[in-house]
């Protein structure tokens, strides 16, 4: 019964529905990429700087070296979603662990954890990501970890707040009385109840990660072996006088993806917190 209620509430938000559908399209593109565009998207396949529509085999045109932009957009969907998901996973892992421990144990553990979170919130996040990537090298792993490191604090705070609220409830006290270990209580009892709002936040972190990754690639610090949307925007920057479509098209892709993720986040929020609806 609850499940249907959730979906129904989600679907009532038309924006969220549209967002979810679009993301499915993007995800589908990501899955289908190797089949529909089997050639490595970074391969040079045509004359450089062809406008969209100028050559029938390249519906979105070619870039400065002669690579197929449509292929790069479709394959880029893959890279973008994967990076977004993995970075969000890293952030969620760190954030939930830190927040759970801080919220459950309280006291000086809580104080220290919050100081550390404040530390990471004080360092301007993109600057930190750029510095990490510039120093440690432009590989996909480094980028994912760097984004995860700057994104965990909001998840930690939320988790902490949830744990603070839940740890004094009767069911938790009952578990303690039964002699359950702290770990079991945290992971088995409180966490499942604390997760819903965290999931909403995680979806927004995915959107943030997509924006981070595109900024990093735009500045030329992305992995050169990956067809990233941000890198394409950066490549097109020198040619905005004559071939501005090279920068325009991938930017639209990023915007649509981030928009959909935000709409989904809104929808999840509405679905999980029906009382706060009607704003």
């Amino acid at each position, binding site marked *: 019964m609850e499940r249907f209620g959730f979906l129904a509430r989600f679907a009532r938000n038309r924006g969220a529905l549209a967002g979810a559908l679009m993301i499915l399209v993007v995800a589908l593109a990501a899955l289908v990429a190797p089949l529909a565009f089997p050639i490595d998207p970074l391969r040079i396949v045509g004359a450089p700087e062809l406008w969209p529509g100028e050559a029938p085999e390249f519906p979105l045109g070619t870039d400065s070296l002669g690579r197929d932009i449509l292929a790069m957009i479709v394959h880029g969907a893959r890279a973008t979603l994967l990076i977004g998901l993995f970075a969000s996973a890293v952030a969620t892992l760190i954030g939930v662990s830190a927040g759970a421990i801080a919220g459950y144990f309280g006291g000086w553990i809580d104080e220290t954890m919050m100081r550390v979170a404040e530390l990471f919130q004080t360092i301007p996040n993109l600057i930190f990501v750029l510095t990490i990537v510039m120093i440690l090298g*432009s590989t996909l792993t480094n980028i994912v970890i760097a984004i995860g490191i700057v994104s965990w604090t909001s998840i930690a705070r939320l988790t902490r707040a949830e744990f603070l609220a839940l740890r004094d409830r009767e069911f938790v006290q009952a578990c303690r009385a039964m002699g359950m270990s702290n770990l079991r209580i945290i992971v088995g009892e409180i966490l499942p109840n604390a997760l819903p709002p965290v999931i909403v936040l995680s979806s927004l972190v995915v959107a943030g990660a997509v924006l981070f990754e595109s900024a990093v690639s735009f500045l030329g610090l992305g992995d050169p*072996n990956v067809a990233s949307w941000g890198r394409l925007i950066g490549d097109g920057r020198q040619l905005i006088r004559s071939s501005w479509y090279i920068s325009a098209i991938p930017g639209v892709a990023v915007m649509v993806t981030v928009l959909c993720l935000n709409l989904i986040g809104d929808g999840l929020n509405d679905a999980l917190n029906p009382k706060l609806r009607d704003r």
Partner: protein
Amino acid sequence: MTNVTRREFSAGALATGVVGGIAPAFAQGEPKRGGTLVATWGGGEPQACYVPAGGGSSPIFSSSKLFERLGDRTMSGEFVGELAEGWKPAADFKSYVVKLRKGVKFHDGKDMTVEDVVYSADEIWRKFAAAAALTDLTGVEAPDADTVVFKFNKPTPEFFFSSLLCGVVSYVVPKHIYAGTDPVTNPANNAPIGTGPWKFKEWVRGSHFEYVKNDAYWRKGYPYLDRMIIRYVRDPAGRAAAMEAGEIHIGVFNPVAPPDIKRLTATGKFAATSKGYEESVWSTSFECNLRNPIFEKREVRQAMFHAIDRSFIAKTVYYGYARPGTSPIFSPNKEFFTADTYRTEFDPKKAAALLDGAGFPKKADGKRFTLNLLAAGWFTENGKIGAYVKQALEDVGVGINLTVPDRPTSIKRIYTDYDFDLAISNQSNPSEPVPATTQYYTSDGIKKGVPFRNASGFHTAEVDALVERIKVETDAAKRKAMIVEFQQIITREAPNLPLVELESITVASTKVQNHSNDPDYLAASWYDIWLA
């Protein structure tokens, strides 16, 4: 004795005419006096106005207007005296007598003397500016107030010595400013005092250098202009916009992107030229790390080059402002370049055949072996070339892992750690091949930790011996023959060869006269430039 050029002679005559106080009506082509020139170049601000070791093109551009060298090379190829009147070899070519010009003063009023030359050669050139070239210099002496004698422990060819005196940062610096200090950190490097046509006035960091006319310049009647400003603009689009708005008159070394070059010249208000870079030709090079046993056989190395379409790189990555390179000595080098070398033309089939023959057939997954390709990230073009080369090599069955690290990481990985299998880097060499070109291919060129040296690890007894003979051969014809042989060996061995030679472009407003008249124009003093 080397000559004073006719140009200087007539310029002197012109000057006397003007100084006479009459204001003649200037016909077109008659230099106009006065005004301020605003110049820029295709890179960024230097770390200091003058860097004793060179420090890259930016400080060379800024310091060459304030300092001068003993000699200069003209567009026609002659060597002429600048701060020297001339020079002559001894009969055994183990020493050279240089006659110093009289009446030259530094910007602070002190005379330039033989002591300054001796100091510069001993402390600056030998230690920083031309260390590799001066390994055989045994001493510099001043037997009298006008003469400096350079002594070598081996016979030294005249072309080599003349090139030395024109060395890009072989300036005569004031001993009274630099003696007893550490030249690298001397504060005068940010406000240099030299003998040049321009005097340092101000450095507004992040913006520009301002130079003013040296009224006591030894070339009477020069410079024509009152002031020169070197402006630094971070991005090429900004430079193009500034030039269009008339705020910058001339930009050297590819100041704007290729599409903008066409756009600016189409307005008729600007001219673009590739003249002025003959002594400073840049190339994009491709080298194999012979420490990897795969590259032991020269056929494998040749195959790498056969797989690459250099014309594609020239056309697409450089928009046509480059040409395929064939020899370690570049084609504008009239003295020594030869086209009669072993060619590694674009021929993927031949590449595949060579690899098969060398014992590297395609395995089940289509790959023969996998290599690490490092494209030095200091130019964006290198990254693009890296992406293309990766594709080209994968097409002949060589798996490639591409990295495009930033400048310090690239320098470290290529020239210190030798942590690469294939590398895309850049070189800029003068006409004299020793040591700039030869040190990429000899055993004494392998210097761990020093950038832009022999990183491929290639050396053979044959080439080492040949280069040693080239260093001491004083007969010009014999020397050329040896250098031709050198090119033929190296192109056949293919350890490190240019992919393309870059065409550097100067863009200038049509108002600017007398520019691009030196074979290394970026490093010239611009004493005779004027604005119409």
